[in-house]
């Protein structure tokens, strides 16, 4: 029932790859960096060739961002050598890095939402020039030249805040291109993009690479890494585990290298019979979100919903949970029709929701574990006077810390200090405490390490065994295939596939999702 993890020792030969003849743009040897007592980088070797697409992968806290910051000159290493285009830089400052043509596109893009596309693109160049007066014509010329470089069509007068995430990223790339770029570093560039947008982005990346620009692509999405990389470097716990050419890696190998262990799933079987429907959704529709969604869920069943970003899967969950209620359709729980207009309605009906964004939606980061476990059940913690009973509160919280094995020194510790996996367990305990009939989980293992993943699956399976109906939304295909009884695939706001997991393999599901992706592409291509 529980996924099994076998740890296998790894023996990897470090190879410098195929392109020794080509000149190195950047070479770093034995780079070390400590923060306080914590060793963020423990003697890392790393190099990038000219006109190479080099992917850097690693779990949270493996030292990826520290490495980026050292290359951009934001942070000085405590030891090691940096060589760029053959020249040694004992101290690489921000200004040196910029002058050498190194540009970082951060995850948040560093844009000004209140300014136009043109001004956003031209800004760094204007600041660098240091003119006191602003020449609007010049701004437009700079912007136009940059957008033409990557052949992208943006309305230069539009405010950046009104653009889609994908186009905002293009603005950030355009800004980087206003100067001579030699190395473009993209930090988690695809995390909020849909399939179509990622394809467009890849086109731009290949285009830039063909112009001789080196690309460093930092990501945790392995299928994208495999699609784009010439070379892949894997960081783990501040150490460079390996640098391998694309031909020598595949998905499983990368996971193994990243986590240091091999992940083997056992499939979830679920109840023998799902007699008695717990939840029945019929014709659920919300304009501009999803349309005509019907499905049912049994007690003890784990139902997977997958689909590309922008397929409407999260929107469906938000409607069922009352955050953004549906316009039409019926929801029946335990044979009784329920109307869900608010979160309170949903919770009363027995629906719980673990949101995708733990940082802003799942937890109140500044508050303690004690406070984050109880919001749903707070009214049950009152004594005879109707006042909160601290003793019972503490007991409840300690019970869940114990039950889920949340690693925390004390219940009064702020949740923001916990690891991703332990934070997610706090979110789960919040719902476990409320004993929901139905629990919807939206990408519950995003940003947690492999060990925590398995214990989250364990919690979810245990819940299902106790009769809770679980809806597991995820874009990780192995996750849904191995943990669910059935899988629904969404595309363009509609349910398009309904699969029994025992009949399918991961590859088949992946193909179905990818296929709908290409279809989607064709459709949107025709629309243009």
């Amino acid at each position, binding site marked *: 029932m529980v996924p099994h993890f076998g740890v296998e020792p790894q023996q990897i030969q470090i190879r410098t790859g195929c392109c020794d003849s080509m000149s190195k743009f950047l070479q770093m040897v034995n780079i070390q960096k400590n923060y306080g007592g914590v060793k963020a980088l423990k003697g890392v070797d790393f190099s990038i060739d000219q006109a190479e697409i080099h992917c850097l992968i690693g779990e949270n806290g493996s030292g990826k961002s520290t490495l980026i910051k050292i290359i951009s000159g934001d942070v000085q290493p405590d030891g090691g050598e940096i060589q760029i285009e053959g020249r040694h830089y004992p101290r690489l400052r921000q200004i040196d890095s910029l002058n050498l043509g190194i540009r970082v596109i*951060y995850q*948040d*893009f*560093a*844009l*000004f*939402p*209140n*300014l136009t596309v043109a*001004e956003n693109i031209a*800004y*760094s160049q*204007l*600041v*660098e020039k*240091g*003119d*006191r*007066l*602003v020449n609007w014509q010049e701004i437009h010329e700079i912007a136009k030249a940059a957008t033409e470089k990557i052949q992208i069509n943006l309305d230069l007068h539009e405010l950046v805040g009104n653009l889609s995430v994908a186009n905002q990223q293009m603005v950030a790339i355009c*800004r980087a291109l206003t100067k001579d770029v030699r190395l473009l570093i993209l930090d988690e560039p695809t995390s909020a993009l849909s399939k179509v947008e990622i394809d467009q982005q890849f086109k731009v990346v290949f285009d830039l690479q063909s112009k001789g620009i080196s690309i460093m692509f930092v990501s945790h999405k392995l299928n994208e890494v495999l699609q784009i990389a010439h070379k892949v470097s894997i960081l783990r716990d501040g150490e460079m585990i390996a640098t391998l050419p694309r031909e020598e890696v595949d998905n499983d190998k990368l996971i193994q290298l990243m986590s240091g262990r091999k992940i083997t799933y056992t499939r979830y079987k679920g109840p023998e019979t799902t007699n008695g429907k717990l939840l029945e959704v019929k014709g659920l529709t919300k*304009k*501009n*979100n*999803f*349309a005509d969604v019907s499905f049912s869920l049994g007690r003890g069943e784990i139902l997977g919903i997958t689909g590309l970003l*922008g*397929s*409407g899967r999260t*929107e469906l969950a938000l409607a069922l949970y009352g955050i953004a209620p549906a316009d039409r359709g019926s929801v029946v729980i335990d044979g009784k029709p329920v109307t869900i207009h608010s979160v309170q309605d949903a919770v009363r009906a027995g629906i719980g929701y673990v949101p995708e964004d733990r940082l802003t939606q799942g937890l109140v980061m500044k508050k303690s574990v004690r406070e984050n476990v109880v919001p749903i059940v707070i009214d049950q913690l009152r004594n005879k006077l109707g006042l909160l009973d601290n003793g019972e509160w503490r007991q409840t919280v300690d019970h869940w810390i114990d039950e889920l094995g949340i690693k925390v020194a004390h219940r009064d510790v702020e949740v923001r200090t916990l690891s991703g996996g332990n934070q997610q367990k706090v979110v789960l305990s919040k719902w476990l405490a409320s004993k929901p009939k139905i629990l919807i989980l939206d990408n519950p293992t995003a940003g947690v390490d492999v060990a925590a993943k398995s214990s989250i699956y364990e919690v979810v399976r245990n819940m299902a065994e106790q009769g809770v109906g679980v809806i597991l939304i995820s874009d990780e295909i192995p996750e849904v295939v191995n943990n669910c009884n059935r899988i629904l695939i969404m*595309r*363009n*706001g*509609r349910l398009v596939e309904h699969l029994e997991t025992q009949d399918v393999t991961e590859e088949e599901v992946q193909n179905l999702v990818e296929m709908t992706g290409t279809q989607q592409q064709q*459709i*949107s291509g025709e629309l243009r």
Partner: protein
Amino acid sequence: MMKKLTKQTEFYLALLIIALSIFITLNNPRFLTTENIFGLLRSFSVMGIMSVGVLFVLILGGSPDVSFTAIAQVVQYIVVILTLNYGGNIFLAFLVACALGVLMGLLNGFLVHKFKVPTIIITIATSNIYFGLLYVFSKGEVIFVIHPMFREFGQLAIGSWVGQHGTPYGLSLLAIIWLLTLVAGWFILRRTQIGRNIYAIGGNEIAAERVGINVFKTRMFVFGVIGFLSGVAAIVHAAIVQSAIPNIIVGQEMNVIAAVFLGGAGVFGGKGTIIGTFLGILLLAIVSNGLTLLGISTYWYNVLIGAVIVVSITISAIQQIRQEKTRVRVQVEGEVTA
């Protein structure tokens, strides 16, 4: 183009002002006379000048400065006493006033930057300090007789016409100072790099640092500007009132801030225009003037302004909620998008 226009606060504010003007004119034609308009511009010049400084601060960060009235109050009192004792001319008065204003503004800016505290918090504290010390040293005494140059300056005007009751009038220099402030403010915000930097910091301060903007310098500039304009407003106020009353300007800060918010500035920073700010003050002026001309008690002034603010923020909030509801999150297959 029209669509872009109707999205802007300024557009609705202008419509409201036009509608009000028509209504008032229909009931009292005196409203739309140059004499009345010029008078209006003169008497609202103090608020108008200060509003430009407030706009700068709100663009920078959305958290308002509440100490500018205290600064103007202190500056005015000091300059009035200095000129009484040592004479001097109006240029010198302006120079001293602006220098003092800039100093106090810079102190605010420095504290805000150094301690990383919202502007409103620091300026509540400093306004208490500035104003409290003024009262300690002035003992709250009103100076009824001030140097005659202030009166003379206040009477300077461009053009000379004869008004309805035979009194001569022109476009007061004080009103022109306000208009010049608006032009200068527009120029800085729209045409200079530091002006764009103010918007950039207001939009995303971390990004501003990343593209190489000197945030400290820009912040000090903004607080220098509001200090400078408080100095200008102090002299203009003295020229209108022709006395120095140590608690007459303090207490106006919320009205000015409200006008700038009405004009489209946001509480999150990065937003706001000179035109909007001008229209915001103009609305206050017209409501106040209209009440007098229509023979309605001026007691209704605050009720009307308050109602305008509450109604306008409510409308824009409802618009935003509606917009959010109709936003396309997913291109639903087979759905007709309007």
